[in-house]
């Protein structure tokens, strides 16, 4: 029983790491723009496909590159391309609306639509057959005890989540850029008057958020290997739930929320039929949003009457 529990815990931490990383991306954009970037989950999905093609391309032309160098190249290139995608979406779809001072509702709808375009565009271009993400790193398995195993990949995933969080915390709390990001979330109008280049900061935020999604995308592909165009949707929503539960707008909340959700889901699946997993996650979201809408770490915003 104990080993069953520990094994599940390890899997939960791995699963939760993905939620965390994606949740952090949501959080960044929301923290700065008060915008729920519904396309984020689909950016994650797209990054997985981008990685697939990068790996296919590299291994086809440079057969000597495998293992860690391959991983690093894939990581860097995919992060870059995904960041470009995120920035592109911001420029083309969100910025014009921001410039017009359009109601936030319209931007949210646009984000939702962009998500659909990414999903269905993928489906249209690449077809419905699911692909298999290639193996990059050789698998190393360690036995921690009777029927408890952990692979190097799982360790990598979990460590990545922590590293990503640490880097983000550093950027947001300790750098000028981070301070600008936080400032913009408080008052979008006064900030340009203080010499902060709002557009640059926003561009950076999207680039960073998308790059994070890319890290998650590559690791996800390596961990579970099944790819399909709709994989971003459900995971995106769950990660979003995680961010909200933790307290959207606060990266600590997003980080912890991701692990919490991962643990809940894996343990639900351990004891109940797996079809209940989604149901329970969403019910939890509903309950938390009804009773504590700001989540665990969030700050309530009150309107001045």
């Amino acid at each position, binding site marked *: 029983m104990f080993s069953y529990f520990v094994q599940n815990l390890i899997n939960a931490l791995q699963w939760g790491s993905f939620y965390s990383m994606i949740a952090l991306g949501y959080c960044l954009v929301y923290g700065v723009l008060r915008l*729920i970037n519904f396309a984020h989950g689909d950016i994650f999905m797209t990054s997985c496909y981008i990685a697939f093609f990068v790996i296919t391309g590299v291994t086809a032309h440079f057969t000597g590159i495998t293992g860690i160098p391959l991983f690093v190249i894939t990581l860097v290139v995919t992060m870059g391309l995904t960041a470009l995608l995120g920035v592109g979406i911001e420029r083309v779809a969100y910025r014009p609306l921001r410039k017009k001072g359009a109601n936030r509702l319209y931007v949210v709808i646009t984000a939702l*639509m962009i998500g*659909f375009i990414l999903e269905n565009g993928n489906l249209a271009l690449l077809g419905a057959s699911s692909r298999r993400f290639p193996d990059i790193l050789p698998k190393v398995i360690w036995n921690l005890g009777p029927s408890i195993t952990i692979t190097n990949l799982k360790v990598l995933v979990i460590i990545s989540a922590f590293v990503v969080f640490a880097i983000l915390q550093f950027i947001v709390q300790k750098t000028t850029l981070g301070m600008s990001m936080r400032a913009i979330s408080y008052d979008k109008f006064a900030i340009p008057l203080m010499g902060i280049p709002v557009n640059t900061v926003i561009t950076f935020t999207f680039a960073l958020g998308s790059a994070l999604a890319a890290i998650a995308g590559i690791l996800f592909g390596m961990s579970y290997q099944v790819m399909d165009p709709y994989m971003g949707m459900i995971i995106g929503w769950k990660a979003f739930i995680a961010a909200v539960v933790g307290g959207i707008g606060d990266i600590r909340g997003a980080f912890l929320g991701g692990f919490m959700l991962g643990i809940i889901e894996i343990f639900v699946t351990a004891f109940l039929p797996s079809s209940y997993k*989604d149901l329970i996650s969403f019910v939890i979201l509903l309950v938390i949003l009804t009773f504590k809408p700001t989540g665990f770490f969030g700050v309530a915003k009150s309107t001045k009457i």
Partner: protein
Amino acid sequence: MTDKKKKFLVPSITVLVMLIIILLAKVGVINNYYQTILMTICINVIMSASLNVVNGYMGEFSCGHGGFMAVGAYVSSILSLILFCPGNSITGHALLPPSMAIVAFPFIILIGGAASMVVSLLVAIPSFKTRDDYLAIITIATNFIITTAINNIPIVGGSRGLMGMKTTMSFMAKTVSLPWMLIWGFVFAALTVVVIHRVMHSTLGMGISAIRYDEISAEIMSVNTNSMKLLAFTFSSGLAGVAGGLFAHMLGFINPSSFGIMKSTESLVMVYLGGMGSLSGSVISAFIFTILLELLRPAQILKWVIIPLMLILIMQFRPEGFMGPRELTQVFPRLKNLFAPNRNLIRPIAKPTEVRK
């Protein structure tokens, strides 16, 4: 034409047009394919107009309309199967004779709608305290909860779906040979439009619109905003449930995946295309949207790239939609002549002062 007669002008014309179409369908001039399209238009009119109550008139952002459609679809289907389908997957035998199908059908549909109303409390009650983004999330979560819950109920087929509703339809046709699907579609769509118009244009219903413009001053002016929100959500969801029932019986087969966020998006597109707070806008955009979808059918998956793109472009260039918050009679004032004037809007003549003797 006198005012009294004018009251019946537009309704009579509408009924006449519908009767003509039904006749044409009966004799086969309008074949099954076109009947299905007309039915779909009716269902979309109901979905679009009902969502407009919450997203348009009240100015909230409800993205879970598909979920309420699902509730209505499933409840009415279950009822239909239990009552009329011999050998159905739930009770095994039919409870009522086929001849009662015509009479029972509207009740089946309405009960589906009532069920949706109850489920909508999941969204209505949180809406008292939350708005905007958070409420949007709650509505989406509710949509998912409904579909995933249905997935987990084996007796209604779970993810494999539910079928057998066509039996009820065929029993209706056997009793009286008419294109019943079309008839019921028209009936419920017309009722929806009338009902929404009456409620939203009454002083009671205008309280709902007041929330959109300024919720705080609405409260100050004695509008019970919680009641208004409750009314708007239950009303809107009930109608979505009705649409769901019609949808289920038209297709004869339903499964939870048809009612997910994609379905909700369809309704969103129609509302924002037609104009927030414009009933005529919702009806018009339902027409256009259905026909567009049909025209794009050959493009298959690309269809679902084009529709989101359309909505994005609307958001960029004309976010208020076709008609904005205005009705057709405001864009074309001459149309007002078709309707009897609202005497409450005419300035009363001041009573003549008594002459002192």
